[in-house]
C-alpha cells in the first residue's frame, strides 16, 4: 500500500521539496556572509544589509509560515476527498483494507509534510540567527527597516525553530479530516485554509501568551520607551528586555487602577523624533501614571516552541483517530 500512496504523491512531493531545495541553496550561499558581517560589525550590521538579504529574510520567514498551510491545502484536503470525488475509493477498498489504506496515506504524506516544514524552518532559523540575535540585542528598541520583530513576536515565532513541524502535522491531518467530512476537494481546501488560519490566530493571541505564566512588570512611561499613542490618549511602551515578547499592557493611575492618561499626553512626544517634551513625561510620572505589562522573556523561546509543538502534535493525533473512525464508516 505504501507503493500506491507514494506513486500518487510523488509529483506533489517533488513540487514542494523542489521549491524548498531552491530556497535552501539560496540560504546556504548567503548565510555565511551574514554571519561574518555580524561578527565584524556587531548588531549595527542590520543597517548595512542589502535588499537581497532583506528580501530573503522576509520571503524565507513567510515560506516557513506557508509550508504547513500548503501541506494542509494541497496534500491533506484532497488526500481522501479526491478519491471520494472520483470514486476511486471503491477500487482501492476492494483491493486493500480501508485501515491500511488510510494508515499508509496518512503516514507517508504526513511525515513528508512534517519533514518539509521542519527542514525549511531549521534552515531559516540558522540563516536568520545573526539577524534575530541583533534585533534581540537592541533592548526592546526596533531595528532598521523590517528588522523590528524579535523571534518571540507572533509574526516570526511560527517561522523559526521546531514549531512548524507541529503546524504541518496539524494542518495536514485537519485537511484530511475536513476532506472526509465535506467529500469534495475544492470546498475542503478552502475550508481547511479558513479553519487553520483561525486556529493559528487563536493560538498566538490566546494560548501562547499563557503557555507559561507571563512575567508581570510595572514600568514608567518615558520618551525613550514610548512606541504608540492612540487618538484617545492610550499609550504603548516597550521594555528594556532584550528580545522579549510583550503580550499585553495597559496604563494604571496613581491608585493602581486601569486608566487612560490625560489627553494632553498627546503633546508629549513633540513635533519630531528626538525633540520630545521631557517635562511632559515627568508630569505624567508625577501624577502616578505607569504602564503594567505582561511579557515572555527571550529565554523562554525554546520552551514555548516545545510546548506548542506538543499541543499541535496531540491535536493531529486526535484528528488522525477521527479520520480512521470516519473512513471505516464511509460508504
Amino acid at each position, binding site marked *: 500500500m505504501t*507503493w*500506491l500512496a507514494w*506513486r*500518487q504523491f510523488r509529483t506533489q512531493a517533488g513540487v514542494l521539496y523542489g521549491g524548498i531545495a531552491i530556497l535552501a541553496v539560496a540560504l546556504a550561499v548567503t548565510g555565511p556572509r551574514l554571519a561574518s558581517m555580524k561578527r565584524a560589525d556587531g548588531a549595527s550590521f542590520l543597517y548595512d544589509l542589502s535588499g537581497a538579504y532583506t528580501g530573503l529574510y522576509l520571503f524565507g520567514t513567510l515560506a516557513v509560515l506557508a509550508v504547513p498551510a500548503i501541506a494542509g491545502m494541497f496534500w491533506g484536503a484532497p488526500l481522501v476527498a479526491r478519491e471520494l470525488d472520483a*470514486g476511486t475509493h471503491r*477500487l482501492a477498498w*476492494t*483491493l486493500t*483494507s480501508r485501515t491500511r489504506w488510510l494508515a499508509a496515506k496518512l503516514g507517508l504524506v504526513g511525515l513528508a509534510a512534517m519533514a518539509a516544514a521542519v527542514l525549511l524552518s531549521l534552515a531559516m532559523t540558522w540563516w536568520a540567527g545573526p539577524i534575530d540575535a541583533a534585533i534581540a540585542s537592541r533592548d526592546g528598541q526596533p531595528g532598521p527597516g523590517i528588522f523590528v520583530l524579535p523571534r518571540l513576536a507572533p509574526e516570526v515565532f511560527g517561522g523559526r525553530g521546531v514549531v512548524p513541524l507541529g503546524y504541518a502535522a496539524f494542518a495536514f491531518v485537519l485537511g484530511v479530516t475536513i476532506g472526509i467530512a465535506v467529500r469534495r476537494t475544492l470546498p475542503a481546501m478552502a475550508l481547511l485554509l479558513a479553519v487553520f488560519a483561525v486556529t493559528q490566530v487563536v493560538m498566538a493571541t490566546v494560548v501562547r501568551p499563557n503557555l507559561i505564566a507571563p512575567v508581570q512588570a510595572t514600568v514608567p512611561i518615558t520618551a525613550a520607551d514610548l512606541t504608540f499613542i492612540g487618538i484617545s490618549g492610550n499609550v504603548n511602551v516597550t521594555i528594556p528586555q532584550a528580545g522579549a515578547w510583550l503580550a499585553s499592557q495597559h496604563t494604571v493611575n496613581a491608585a493602581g487602577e486601569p486608566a487612560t492618561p490625560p489627553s494632553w499626553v498627546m503633546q508629549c512626544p513633540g513635533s519630531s523624533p528626538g525633540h520630545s517634551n521631557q517635562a511632559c513625561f515627568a508630569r505624567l510620572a508625577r501624577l502616578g501614571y505607569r504602564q503594567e505589562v505582561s511579557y515572555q522573556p527571550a529565554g523562554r523561546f525554546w520552551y514555548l516552541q516545545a510546548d506548542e509543538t506538543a499541543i499541535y502534535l496531540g491535536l493531529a493525533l486526535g484528528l488522525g483517530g477521527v479520520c480512521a473512525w470516519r473512513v471505516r464508516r464511509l*460508504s
Partner: protein
Amino acid sequence: MTFIMRASGLGKKYRRRWALTDCDLDVPAGRVVGLVGPNGAGKTTLLSLAAGLLTPTAGTIEVCGGHPGGGRGQLARVGFVAQDTPTYRRLSVADHLTMGRRLSPRWDDDLAWRRVRRLGLPPRARAGQLSGGQRAQLALTLAIAKRPELLILDEPVASLDPLARRDFLEDLREATTGQGLSVVHSSHLVSDIERVCDYLIVLVDSRVRVAGDVGQLLASHVRSGDVRPASLEDLVLGYLEEGR
C-alpha cells in the same frame, strides 16, 4: 450445494429511504448471475453490500462463506468492478497492474499482462487518456487477475457505446468460462444479461422480485399457460410489469 452469496433479511437504509429491504438470496456457486432491475431499484446497494463497501442496516449477508470486507482473505476472494469503472486517472496502465500485484495476495501477473496485451491497452498510457471501453477493460483486468472466487460487476458497460459493450461482454464470457469463477453482473438492460447469464435476480423497488435459474424460470412460465415468454427479455419485462 455451496452458495457463493447468501442474504437473509438484508436491508440498507440511507437517511430516511430504504434502498434495499427484506432481501433473501441463496446464489449457488459457479453461476453467472444477472442482476436486473430499473434504475434506482437497489442493484448498486446490493452489490456494494456484497463487496463490503456498505454495511447492512438490517439482516445479514455472507459472501464466499465470509463476512464482506472482513480482512485481507475476504478481499482477495471477491473481485469488484464498481459502477463507471473507476481507475486512477493519473496512473498508467502498468502502474495499475503494479498496484494490483502489490495489494492482492493471489495476483496472477501473467494473466494480467496477457490480457492487457491482447486488448491492446498501451502500458504507458495514463488511465485518464484511455477510452471508456479501455478503462472498463482495465478495471475488469484488475478484478480478474486477483483470481477471485466471485467477480462482482456493477453495470460495467452502462456508459459504453454498443460496440465496446459487445466487446466487453464477449471478453467477459471468454475470461470467465471454465475458470470455476462465479459472477454477479448487474445491468438495467436485459440484452446485456442475456448474452452471459444463467441465473437471474430481478430487483424492483428495493425488493427481490424473483431469483432463480434462467432455464427453470423460462420453463415454469411456459407451463403456466396464459403467459408464453419467448425470451428472457419478455420474462423480465413481465416481472417488472407485475411490480408496477
